[in-house]
């Protein structure tokens, strides 16, 4: 009863808000509608992706053509170079992967996929975005303050980050820290919302194992985030005090320990990888099931492997610190846990691949992205084994091999996963179909250059090239590798160029693409049972969906069509 009356009150609120809420542009800035907030996160995240991509372009140009003026930027100084790599890493993880995969898709899809009219805490949701926006403004302005942006890498190791005498960016480094802390607050607020909404606001009939993978994965990711971020948040405050109040938590000359920060950072930093991985996996699974017209191979297996990965991810953090001065015996324990995590991850990949077996696979653009995720992520996964094995990491640590490895995980997650989700739900979000030809040009124009950027970087890493170095001209052993660097940079420029096809496609389809019907992909989940785009409140109040079966009943023998929406009575 309590639930029903809450829903009625909420419906009433929706009705009144439409009449008395803010008008015009303010309507979009001040909305509590989960779909509007999702769009705010999506477009902010995409804007930040352009900023982060531009940074990558500038420092790759410097590496390929050292000392030359970079078009659209100018000469890159060593301080600017450090600020650019720091900004690129921080922005791509905290201001692109997180807002787009968790906040944008989570906000948009969780209520729609579980048949709710909104998040359970719409105002907390609005506050979450507003704090996030503040963090964006802080990180962007930190690049332009006196002394320049922080240049101590996204890991921000003290004493470099703690002392302005060492990093030379007194304002930039504090602002970086404040921006990251604000971002954490925003995602804690968002996470509370996702978890509570999934627990309490599901459509009647939707049992735990009827929930589609996207809400599950985003909620598991939010739980991981909430459990791991606490220590780093405390660490961030301690580091801020070290920077500005003269404390010495991480200063060895005053009894502190710089390695403590590394523990706090990576205790968060490693689960964070899975925080962004899981939503992408959820998106990929939903798309693969839909376009393979196939029931998911092992729903529970997948769910349990996600949970197992999440639990294990709390016990692997020191593999980032094998050679950081920790007791070498400790590395053995973390080698074991790190390699163990390959088991659930491999299982996850096997389940997705096995879902293709017996399917009726349609290679539409969202499916191409989803399959590319699997194909590319496998490279990221297997190269991780080299680094988890302590004996090999003793050499490969901090080389371009590491860089190439995690780009083969993060690029599929944050870029391929996002394009998969965006092209799949675009008809629902904007009520128009995207152009398939432009979509395919964009797909191949992204995937092929992507491999030409990062496969060469594996070679550079094996050859002993270190990361985060402004100019390799000083290292005689690395000079002959310049053509490889130029190849990677040219591939990056080509890949960035092909992103124009994406923007062209989005703008063109948004304005005059063919109108999308309710369920253009013939999918089963609940978001496809409402209008495209869904109205405020998602469904008319008296037509809220009920659920009769799981989300992946494709090609069921008892049914003539090859799909069976969750809301159709038996």
């Amino acid at each position, binding site marked *: 009863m309590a639930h029903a009356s809450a829903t009625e009150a909420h419906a009433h609120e929706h009705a009144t808000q439409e009449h008395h809420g803010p008008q015009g542009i303010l309507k979009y800035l001040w909305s509590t509608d989960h779909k509007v907030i999702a769009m705010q996160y999506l477009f902010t995240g995409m804007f930040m992706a352009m900023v982060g991509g531009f940074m990558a372009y500038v420092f790759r140009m410097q590496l390929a053509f050292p000392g030359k003026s970079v078009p659209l930027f100018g000469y890159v100084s*060593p301080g600017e170079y*450090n600020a650019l790599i720091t900004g690129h890493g921080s922005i791509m993880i905290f201001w692109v992967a997180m807002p787009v995969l968790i906040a944008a898709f989570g906000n948009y899809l969780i209520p729609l996929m579980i048949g709710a009219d909104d998040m359970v805490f719409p105002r907390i949701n609005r506050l979450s975005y507003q704090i996030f926006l503040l963090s964006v403004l802080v990180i962007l302005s930190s690049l332009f303050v006196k002394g320049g942006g922080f*240049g*101590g890498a996204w890991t921000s190791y003290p*004493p*470099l980050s703690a002392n302005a005498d*060492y990093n030379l960016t007194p304002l930039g480094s504090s602002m970086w820290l404040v921006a990251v802390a604000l971002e954490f607050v925003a995602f804690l607020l968002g996470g509370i919302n996702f978890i509570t909404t999934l627990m309490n606001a599901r459509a009647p009939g939707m049992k735990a194992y009827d929930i589609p993978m996207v809400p599950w994965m985003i909620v598991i990711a939010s739980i991981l985030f909430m459990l791991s971020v606490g220590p780093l948040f405390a660490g961030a405050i301690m580091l801020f005090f070290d920077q500005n109040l003269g404390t010495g938590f991480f200063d*060895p*000359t005053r009894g502190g320990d*710089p390695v403590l920060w590394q523990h706090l950072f990576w205790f968060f930093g490693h689960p964070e990888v899975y925080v962004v991985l899981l939503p992408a996996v959820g998106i990929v699974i939903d798309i693969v099931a839909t376009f393979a*017209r*196939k*029931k998911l*191979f*092992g729903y529970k297996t997948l769910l349990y492997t996600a949970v197992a990965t999440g639990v294990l991810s709390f016990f692997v953090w020191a593999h980032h610190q094998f*050679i*950081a*001065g920790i007791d*070498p015996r400790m590395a*053995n324990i973390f*080698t074991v846990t790190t*390699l*163990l995590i390959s*088991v659930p991850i491999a299982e996850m990949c*096997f389940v997705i691949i*096995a879902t*293709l077996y*017996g*399917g*009726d*696979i*349609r*290679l539409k653009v969202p499916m191409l992205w989803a399959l590319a995720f699997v*194909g590319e992520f*496998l*490279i990221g996964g*297997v*190269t991780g*084994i*080299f680094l*988890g*094995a*302590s*004996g*090999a990491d*003793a*050499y490969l640590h*901090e080389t371009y091999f590491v860089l190439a490895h995690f780009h083969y995980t993060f690029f599929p997650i944050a870029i391929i996963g996002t394009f998969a989700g965006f092209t799949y739900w675009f008809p629902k979000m904007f009520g128009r179909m995207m152009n398939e030809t432009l979509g395919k040009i964009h797909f191949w124009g992204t995937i092929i250059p992507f491999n030409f950027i990062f496969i060469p970087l594996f070679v550079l890493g*094996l*050859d*002993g090239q*270190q*990361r*985060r170095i402004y*100019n390799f001209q000083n*290292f*005689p052993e690395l000079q002959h590798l310049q053509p490889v660097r130029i190849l990677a940079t040219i591939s990056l420029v080509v890949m960035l160029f092909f992103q124009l096809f994406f923007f062209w496609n989005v703008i063109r389809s948004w304005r005059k693409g063919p109108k999308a019907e309710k369920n253009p992909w013939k999918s089963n989940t609940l978001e496809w049972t409402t209008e495209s785009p869904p109205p405020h409140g998602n469904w008319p109040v008296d037509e809220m969906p009920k659920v009769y079966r799981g989300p992946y009943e*494709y*090609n*069921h023998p008892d049914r003539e069509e090859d799909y069976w929406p969750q809301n159709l009575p038996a």
Partner: protein
Amino acid sequence: MLHGLITEASSFAGSIDWLIFLVLVLVGFWFILAEGVFFWLIFRFRSRPGHTGQYLTGKEKHIKRWINIPHALVLVCDVVIVIAAIHVWYIVKMDLPPADYTIRVTGQQWAWVFQQPGEDGQLDTPDDIFTTDSLHVEVNKTYQFLLESRDVIHDFSVPVFRLKQDAVPGRTITGWFRPTKTGTFDVQCAKLCGIGHGVMEGSLVVEDQAHHTAWVAKNTPAAAQ
């Protein structure tokens, strides 16, 4: 496996390269298998006229084993890699063979300072030789190094030795190497340490006994003799 790319110039470089090769073979097998099956399935079950999808839940035993058997085999591979990794790690980082010479390596923004014994062969005596950004060592001698930092975290990295170790302010970290090849090689700083990180390079000169003895004699401070 790496010697085609980069010289192996220390006693443990070969072990690390062997481990990397072992991992490459094992994960390479899984990678090629997984990608092969993946592309074959996409091709085999592509939508075409007259083809329909099947209804499989993943609970069927004869199908489930295609997941379960690889699952177990992955675990076996993990065990093999763990044993090999810990074995190599033990040689490189945990075991500390008796030293012929002990040297001190200090990182600072943005240079490497090397302190090594003069003609008396003892560290921390008045005849120690201090050099900046250039380390001269003798081939086929075991060196222990005491690694320190004066300001921020640096990382003492010698790719041809496959040697890498963070230098942490406030700590003295002990490690070792045994050069096996003469020549001049790169020393890098492998941890971002500020705006001069990219110029914090050094050179490592591995010499035979005669040359090294001559170098030590020439560079031992005169005042101490």
